[in-house]
């Protein structure tokens, strides 16, 4: 991947040359509802995210995007097929505290301040809290004045930003983000998008981002994977070869809009 840093099209060079960091092989997930009634959330999904690659996952609500992330985090296991992280079980990455994850429902500890919530991964890992790092991340997400605030004193979007800071604080090797910017206004959302792009470029964190915002997906990702409605299957994979670093100007670019329109159309059909 080192060679891809200056390449104009990292997506083409990255995924196949190195073993996938994250991989789903024919992963099917069924949930048991009541006796003998099951719902198939995902049907034989194949998906590979290369080392240091940024992949965005699009799909209609309920198609299993969160389920994909949960399986990669080792919180769920596939009914059939395989889910691999660095070629092995997801548990290993988790055990080394090298996974950063931001859940759809932020899940901050209500009794802890914003600072303590962001510092939590250090404490859980049994490492001394790096206060500078915690404060730097809090100001990165625009919350420097709220270090002592409890979650219920924060707005929904502010809580999401605390959760993102918590996911990043240990400089994870793999980052799983489940609609991390869903509750943000358009301006803050774009600003956070560019911050995330910068962090990703700096540290080459393997990232899988679930989002409903097609612009965001195209802006950030090396590849965009579109899932069909339930049961979720891979409908389309789009390599995004737009040059990096991508900035605001790109959102006015014709090619950018082309891709966004095409993916939006695919989502539309997928939802039927």
């Amino acid at each position: 991947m080192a060679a891809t840093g200056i390449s104009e099209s990292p997506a083409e060079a990255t995924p196949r040359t190195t073993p996938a960091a994250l991989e789903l092989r024919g992963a099917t997930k069924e949930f048991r509802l009541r006796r003998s009634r099951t719902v198939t959330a995902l049907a034989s999904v194949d998906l590979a995210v290369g080392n240091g690659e940024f992949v965005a996952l699009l799909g209609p609500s309920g198609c299993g995007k969160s389920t994909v992330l949960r399986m990669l985090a080792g919180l769920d296991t596939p009914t059939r097929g395989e889910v691999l992280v660095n070629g092995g079980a997801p548990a290993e990455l988790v055990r080394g505290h090298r996974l950063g994850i931001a859940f759809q429902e932020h899940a901050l500890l209500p009794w802890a301040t914003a600072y303590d919530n962001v510092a939590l991964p250090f404490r859980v890992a049994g490492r001394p809290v790096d206060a500078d790092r915690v404060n730097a991340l809090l100001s990165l997400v625009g919350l420097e004045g709220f270090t002592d605030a409890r979650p219920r004193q924060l707005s929904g979007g502010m809580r999401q930003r605390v959760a993102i800071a918590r996911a990043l604080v240990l400089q994870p090797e793999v980052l799983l983000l489940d609609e991390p910017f869903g509750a943000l206004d358009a301006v803050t959302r774009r600003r956070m998008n560019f911050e995330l792009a910068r962090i990703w470029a700096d540290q080459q964190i393997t990232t899988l981002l679930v989002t409903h915002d097609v612009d965001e997906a195209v802006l950030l990702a090396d590849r965009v994977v579109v899932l069909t409605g339930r049961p979720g299957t891979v409908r389309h994979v789009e390599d995004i070869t737009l040059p990096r670093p991508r900035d605001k100007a790109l959102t006015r670019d014709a090619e950018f809009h082309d891709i966004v329109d095409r993916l939006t159309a695919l989502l539309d059909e997928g939802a039927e």
Partner: protein
Amino acid sequence: MNRARTTVLTVAGTLLLLAAMEGVGRLGVLGESWPPLTQVVAALDDPITRDLLGRALAATATAAGTGFVAGTLVALVVAVVGALLPPLQPGLDRLAAVVNAVPLIALGPLLITTVGREGTPAVIAALAAGFAVFVAATSGLGAAGAAHRDVFRALGSSRRATLLRLQLPAAVPLLIDGLALAAPAAVLGAVVGEWFGAPRGLGVLLVSSMQNFQTDLMWAAALSAAVISLTAYAALAGLRVAAARRFV
């Protein structure tokens, strides 16, 4: 505003209850065994009675307090062991249920021979309080939400770290509810324990004054037990208000 209303209602209710006690006593509708409240209080003018009651009160409060603290500590340790070693959990739950199912009074003879008459009140208080705390602690340690447990699992948290940083803080509100129930239970346990021949205490005073038809003294002892019980409960209820602000 709401707070003020609650306070007013509490005070009004208490006064009404005391007035009713006084009234029933004055009218003598329930016979001589129900004296007016003023007469019970007047009995305390006698320094000997006051001294007697004071020593009994101190003994019962000490036994109840010791039992409360010991019972709470043991219950917490057992609940934490259950949380750290899940296979033990069902067994511990059943053990606690069995201990609780045995009427405390039936343990008297057993305790007299093992811990002696002096130790029995504190031990019964500990059993009564410990069960309430154990039940509260076990459900409290399981009270953390699924989303929070997922966060800890994904962070690679050890069982110990999860207990310390998630389960214990999440258990605080339920735990304090449990303590608020355990405190009156400890007082009752201590009084019952004193019936098995303890040298002093409100329980002893209750029995002896009953047998000697010292109605005023008997009521003074009963009211003293109620006052300890209510004071302990009120203190813990205050703690709960503080905790609700901090932990929810």
